[in-house]
């Protein structure tokens, strides 16, 4: 086989995002991470949701599946179970992932199938033109909250930890280097990994802007370091900062779902021989139904 050179994971498509959208940086970081990890495009599947964020698949040169609104998680798990050799990455928006798709997220966390989940969290519904999202802050005024939001926002990092996540990180679109690093770590992590990315929507969110995040974000290691294996500390850091913290908050090594499945073969199910001799079926017929 020819020597494989590193690939850039770029495509010809011109992104449909608004100029300045935070999602450009997420794409760039993901491309860099995949390149630096030396992944092959054919062995990566990017599962994207519906939203501005969900367009990311169009611009990332791997196998791509752009699913239904809120349904990245089950599809990603189906893919990984079907072919354990693939690198499976899911990408959602905050509405997609923490609104309509939250249940799948929590259950994916506890199932701990080996995949990486990147959520582009802009605290708004971008593609549907600016309704508030589950992560929108209280009092935020939008077309569907003309008097301001009154729900308590979802805290994705806290929820992920509460659900037993084995890898929780948060990045910011303005820090592509850190984000690249977090995504690389997440992909390397055996099990479910969440990378929540604060990725500003420059068109509809005039509150949680680049400037807002620059002014308010701290690094998890700021002020004395952080042990990413300490769940309690992670929880405390998140609470202290009101969620405005970036870096690797928590990681726990251990077996993932695949390691437990009885009889689950080392070779991918895609390679399983299915046309077994009919004697096999006769055996079942006799044993179970005779």
């Amino acid at each position, binding site marked *: 086989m020819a020597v494989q050179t590193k690939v850039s994971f770029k495509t010809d498509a011109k992104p449909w995002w608004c100029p300045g959208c935070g999602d450009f940086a997420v794409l760039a970081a993901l491309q860099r991470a995949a390149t630096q990890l030396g992944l092959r495009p054919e062995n990566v*599947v990017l599962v994207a949701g519906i939203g501005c964020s969900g367009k990311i698949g169009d611009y990332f040169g791997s196998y791509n599946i752009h*699913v239904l609104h809120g*349904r990245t998680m089950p599809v990603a798990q189906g893919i990984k179970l079907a072919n354990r*050799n*693939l690198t499976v990455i899911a990408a959602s928006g905050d509405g997609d992932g923490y609104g309509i798709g939250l*249940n*799948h997220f929590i259950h994916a966390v506890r199932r701990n199938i080996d995949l990486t989940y990147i959520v582009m969290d802009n605290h708004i519904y971008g593609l549907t033109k600016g309704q508030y999202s589950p992560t929108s802050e209280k009092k935020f005024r939008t077309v569907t909250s003309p008097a301001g939001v009154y729900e308590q926002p979802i805290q994705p990092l806290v929820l992920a930890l509460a659900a037993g996540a084995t890898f929780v990180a948060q990045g910011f679109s303005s820090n592509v280097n850190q984000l690249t690093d977090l995504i690389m770590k997440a992909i390397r992590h055996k099990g479910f990994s969440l990378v929540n990315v604060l990725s500003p929507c420059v068109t509809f969110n005039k509150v949680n802007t680049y400037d807002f995040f620059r002014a308010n974000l701290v690094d998890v290691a700021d002020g004395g370091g952080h042990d990413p294996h300490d769940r309690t500390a992670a929880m405390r850091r998140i609470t202290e900062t009101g969620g405005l913290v970036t870096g690797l908050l928590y990681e726990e090594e251990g077996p993932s779902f695949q390691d437990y499945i009885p009889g689950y073969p080392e070779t991918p*199910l895609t390679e399983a021989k299915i046309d077994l001799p*009919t004697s096999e*079926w006769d055996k079942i017929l006799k044993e179970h139904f005779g």
Partner: protein
Amino acid sequence: MIMIQELSWAVGGQQGEGIESTGEILAATLSRLGYHIYGYRTFSSRIKGGQTNYRIRISTKRVLANQDYIDVLVAFDQETIRLLANRLHPGSLVIADSTDFRAELPAGSSVRLLEIPLTSMAESLGNAVMKNMVAMGATAAVVGFAPETFTDALRRRFGSKGETVVNQNLAAVQKGFEAVAAQLGSGDTFHLAKADGRHRYLMSGDEAAAFGALAAGCRIEAAYPITPASEVMHWLAEMLPKYGGVVVQTEDEIAALMTAVGAGYTGVRAMTSTSGPGLSLMMEALGYAGATETPVVIVNVQRAGPSTGMPTKTEQSDLNEMVYGSHGDLARIVLTPGTVEECFYDTARAFDLAEHYQVPVIVALDLANGLGVQTVEALDYSCLKYDRGERVTNEELAALEGSQFLRYKFTPSGISPRAIPGQPGGMFLATGNEHDQTGHIVERVDNRVQIMNKRMHKLDPLVNDSLAFVRHGLQDADVVLVAFGSTIGPVLEARERLEAAGTKAAVVQVRMAAPFAASQFSDLTAGARKVIVVENNAGGQLYGLIRREVPALAERLASVRKYDGTPFTAGEVVAKCQEVF
């Protein structure tokens, strides 16, 4: 004592008292003796308590439905007698447990009654639950089987609990046999003709579907428990791991179908199984599989709707949703097996169709064939074709030399060879948004029309499918009965009765409801004076479908419906058909 060719037996009592296993043991034993069996349990959405009964038809000929009547009824409570009284005939025999209640038969009925203290006899042997085995022995005496007939089945059922338990149960059978044999009058026995002794297999449609899926190479089932489909999942949970496969119990039905779609996209045969409420939740995901041309199989075991409805009662009322559900225009295949055997064949075939045509395929069972058990002849594995559909090869991809692979290439058939993740050079975007041949999202009007046509017409060849319908009976029939799913059982039998009564009748069984092969159907019903659609629902869903697809038939078309949650019997079909003749 006269020799009979078939016997209708039933046992009834409270849920949680072992009624189910009694029925199962009897059915298994008699199947092993070479009889044809049909077994159907009536139960409710409740774990313990509430009336349940298990009716078994034992015959020297193939049987696909219960009889209109019951010959022998074992009753553990009065409610059983009350509920089944209208099924008793003058020659019926009721064996009532006299431990707890005094059986009352319908006033003026000539039904014979045998009161036996089944429970106390069991208690005297050490355990009240063995009353079922005492009843089994009583049954043996009535039907003229030696008590030893059941030894094998009992060993298989109780073997894991140790020799003592086995022996106690054997003793219970013996005791029941003796107690009854002693009391039997000469007219009290039903001497069942000897069976042909051929080896047959006893299974439910749910099991058959699960088995069909496994044999067809399904390796991932993602599902959420629901009556009456859970048995599919349970069977696969036990068996798939033996073949390296996986069952995922998902958080809901949306996740179930989407997980299967993910696996299907990746190149593994995958499925989900559900019932009405779950099917409704899957409507958006169904459309997604259609739009992305991803193979996936959905086994939908119908129950009485609408909404939660009657989870433990049968109905065939999801046809509309299976055929017309999901927003937008969408091609899908809907197979409607009738017998348990067909549940195996059609589910197996569903995987071939799904991959060949790259569409979602729904296999529609109903509670009656899903949970009902039937004896099945040795299976014909020639149905296992393993048609994986058109796949682009790595060589073909390499020949593209880096130019974009056309996943949704416009071809004369509308089917485009697919790549699966892992194939170098085959990268593409699968999306539920409208897309062009590469998969990229485009909204151009010309492309839109072309790709809609591709998706809508790729199933056109199926209008010639030779398995779309099965016709039974005379060519020059005056009346044609039409049915799908479990209803085919009583309808086939009704046909025989009609014919015996002088009506030239034929049956057209619908095995594929979508796409509907209208012109085949026209041909198959041509010449009939009357075409009667018999179905287990209130809306006349198949009737409506046929009116839409074959409107020219409308004047000759009649509709017979039942929607009380129970399957038809042949007698009911005959009676209702005669009303519309």
